């Protein structure tokens, strides 16, 4: 299977503080990869390095086959990114945001129009095109952001805490959408601190204090640790007396 994301000993230090400590992983095409960890574990820093927003202190990685240090230009047109903070323009209409990002990714007028219709149908955004983005309920704003990240059919979608403070029902709907996208061949690299959502992922990794403490399918992790839910798996791993910490590299 083709790998779309690969890292080797990727690290990021901010002065004395090591935010990301030698992470090594591989993500396969079409996979839904859950990048888990508590707040402050270093998830956002790692994602930003993969997107080419932040330069690593050491280590290496490739995204969509291109080097994340020297070839960030090539990476940009092949990935989509939804940041933790909402980052569409709240004062503009939904359709304005869609057109803006589509054009930024180089979609021609007609291709853009078609793509907007496609994604709007999928995400039920069509009736909201004329609304001011900031006036929509939070869950719908996130959908609009997801659409904007997807217009150019990226190989990989980086989603940093996409479900934030959305209610459980909306969260489920969101994950249904993610799965539809993955079924279409897009690799999804998603971070979240909601452990229950992680069940939807093909494989997950758990970051603790900048290191990857565990990386496997949800089921394998549950079996190994003998815990029934990923939430408890996580708590178990964080426990300093746990042996699994020393096992995993």
């Amino acid at each position, binding site marked *: 299977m083709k790998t779309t994301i690969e890292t080797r000993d990727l690290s990021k230090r901010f002065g004395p503080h090591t935010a990301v400590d030698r992470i090594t992983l591989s993500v396969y095409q079409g996979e839904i990869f859950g990048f888990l960890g508590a707040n402050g574990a270093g998830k956002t820093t790692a994602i930003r390095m993969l*997107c*080419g*927003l932040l*330069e690593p202190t050491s280590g290496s990685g490739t995204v969509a086959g291109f080097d994340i240090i020297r070839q960030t*230009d090539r990476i*940009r*047109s092949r*990935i989509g*990114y939804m*940041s933790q*903070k*909402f*980052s*569409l*323009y*709240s*004062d*503009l209409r939904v359709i*304005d945001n869609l057109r*803006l*990002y589509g*054009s*930024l*990714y*180089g979609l021609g007028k007609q291709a853009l129009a078609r793509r907007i219709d496609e994604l709007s149908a999928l995400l039920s955004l069509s009736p909201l095109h004329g609304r*001011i983005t900031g006036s929509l309920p939070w869950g719908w704003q996130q959908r609009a952001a997801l659409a904007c990240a997807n217009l150019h059919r990226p190989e990989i979608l980086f989603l940093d805490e996409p479900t934030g403070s959305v209610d459980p029902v909306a969260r489920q709907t969101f994950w249904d959408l993610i799965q539809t996208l993955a079924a279409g061949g897009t690799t999804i690299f998603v971070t979240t601190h909601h452990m229950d959502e992680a069940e939807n992922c093909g494989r997950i990794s758990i970051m603790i204090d900048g290191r990857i403490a565990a990386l496997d399918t949800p089921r394998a992790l549950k079996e190994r640790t003998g815990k029934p839910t990923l939430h408890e798996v996580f708590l178990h791993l964080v426990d300093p007396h746990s042996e699994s910490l020393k096992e995993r590299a």
Partner: protein
Amino acid sequence: MNFIRLIIWKEFAHIRADPLMSRLIVLPVLAQLFIVGYALTMEVKHTPLVVVDRSATPQSRSLIASLSSNDLFVYRGTAASEEQARALLDRGAAKLALIIPAHFARDIERLNDGAHVQLLIDGQDANSASVAAGFASAIISQWTFARLGRQLSGQGIDVATLIPVSVTGTVLFNPLLKSSWYMIPALVVILVTIITGLLTGFSIIKEKEQGTFEQLMVTPIKPVHLVLGKIIPFAIIGFLEIVVFLAIATLWFGIPFRGNVLTLFLFASIYMITSLGIGIFTSTVARTMQQVLFMTWFIMIFFILLSGFFLPVENMPHWVQTITLINPVRYFMFVVREIFLKGSGLADLWRQAAAMLMIGVAVFGLSLAMFHRKAQ
């Protein structure tokens, strides 16, 4: 290139989306224009004058009449004593007090070292004080000279033989000495600076504060495209404001525009290189919008005070004048006034153009480089 056009479109969309902002860009400008046009004047008129006439003779009354009948003064009548006059000055009811001594009529007949009158001046407002006193002295001199002429011709002497040289003064370019002709053209400099300097910086820092900056950086767009795309709309608005400003200044206020509109635009463009550069600079160094505001305000006040807006650069000490050599506002201020009132062209002002260009390229280049480095 497409990227830049896209960002320009986005910026205009933002302005359209916020109607209050658009009104705020236009209305204060108009208000400033009207206030500066009508109120901003250093012309010293209607100075309240009080007189202590210890002489009470036809001569002293004639002297008083020469002042009281003049528009420049508001005659508040006579005070009984110098103490009373000083009390009036204390309260601010009068700004000038003329004290005519008791033996005025006798002394003034003498041709040499004749009478002395005292002029008490409220020195709080140093400028108005000296101008008002200057007017009073000039009027008194004229009265004296006319009187002398009559006196001497009565004796068959032509006063011109006693004073073989005379000096006349003529005012060019602004014969009515209207303050508005000097201040309104200068206002365009302030307007352009605020629009292109302050609003640009604000616009850029807003992206960072909102988080949309990061989102944009993940797309194929480069930081340079973003910056250029942001400054062009404000430059356009700046030019539009200049046009509106020109219309109002000439049609409503009757300020003469003796120069060439294209020359004005040329200099405005050169100036904008610097002001836009400052906008980029502040947005790079600052973290929040408040910081951008205070930094820009700080820089602007510094530059404007040392630009000759209120007070001529030539009056400043030499070391300060040297500092103003790198002040782009000084040159633009000078140039705008020359174009308006003297009709000067590029041939007369090429030195200023060169200076502004050099400063602009340096500031803009440095700011852009800093922005680029920080965005990586």
